């Protein structure tokens, strides 16, 4: 049950850009998921559940971190674009149509 949730949490993190933006926590999530699968194979279901939960936590952390970094970049880009736009407007230079 938790293993399935961990797998989908990792998938969500990947879709959020974690492989490029938050690789460390994503790796911890994947390692914990592998541990959980190995434990389950050895019929240690309680330990497997715990490892899977750890995987979920790290996957959520990596997704959250990735989203934060993407937003930060977007804010920086928009700030720079607005500054450029204002400069062009004040100087009367060429600019894009809205």
């Amino acid at each position, binding site marked *: 049950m938790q293993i399935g949730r961990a797998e989908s949490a990792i998938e969500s993190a990947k879709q959020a850009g974690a492989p490029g933006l938050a690789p460390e926590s994503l790796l911890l999530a994947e390692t914990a998921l592998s541990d959980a699968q190995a434990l389950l194979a050895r019929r240690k279901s309680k330990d497997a559940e715990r490892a899977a939960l*750890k995987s979920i*936590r790290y996957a959520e*952390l990596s997704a959250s*971190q990735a989203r934060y970094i993407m*937003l930060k970049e977007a804010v920086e880009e928009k700030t720079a674009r*607005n500054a450029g736009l204002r400069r062009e407007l004040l100087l009367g230079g060429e600019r894009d149509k809205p």
Partner: protein
Amino acid sequence: MIRPWLMLMLVCALPTVEAAGIPVAESVAQLTQEMDGLDREARDGNAAALERLQARQAIERLQAARARDQQAALEEAQVLLKTAEYSVKASQLKDQLVQLDRERDAIMVEAARRDAALARRETERLRLQVLAREEEQSQGIEPESGAMPAEQQAAAASASATGEQARRVAEAKAKEAELARLEEELSAQMNARQDDYLRSRVVAGKTIYTLSATAFAPGKPALTAAAKDVLGMLSKKLKSSGKSWSVEGHLDALGDEAVNLQLSRKRADSVLSVLKSSGVPANKLSAKGLGSGKPVATNQSKSGRAQNRRIEIIQK
């Protein structure tokens, strides 16, 4: 010699801190302090509320954890706190992005105002030129019969120049109207809220959804991201109704009607495209642009024009 059962009792009696070798009380205090700081940072109280709640609950679990579970509980609390921190910061950045969009809109409004002012001056200048030329012609001596071909040529050239100027005046006026609409749409969008996008009413037993022009990029047929979300939700209703729907684009009477027809059609197509991609069957949808032909309010006022710029999704 201590008996095993006595040893077990002693171990159980020891505080969990010593048993696990983790300074739990210290960790809990530090994590709680960080948590409090994070709650203060989430100014409106709603930012990343779930993540913050989860982190706080994890700290409480750490406090109550048995010795053997403390390491895992501490790790979980730290990870959840970090997740909450990123979520709070992300929420603040989203607010910043909205602010930056508003700032950009304000800059563009200012630009549109300047362009409109320039266009107005150019229109006036050209209008005066045309007037001056017309006066010159009316005051001039009528060509005598049997006038020299050279004079006829000059008169023809003069008429041609007047026509050219009239064309330029018309162009400048069209440009001015286009800019005026752009300015109005930018201003409207800056003041728009998401729940302003879509309204519905029932006429003769048939539902009509009206999407305001603030759902589009000013002066363009492209829908904003927020409007696409709204249409995504609407598509579920349209789909479940099983009815056919006509998407009609309307504009105000500013500017050239050919341009209005084109833009209203493109906007209707944009809406149709989103509805289609959100699951409404293509054979249940049609789109057309009606330009300024079917106004619902006066075109003499800003608010009237804003009402006229719309998309109607009409049940067939």
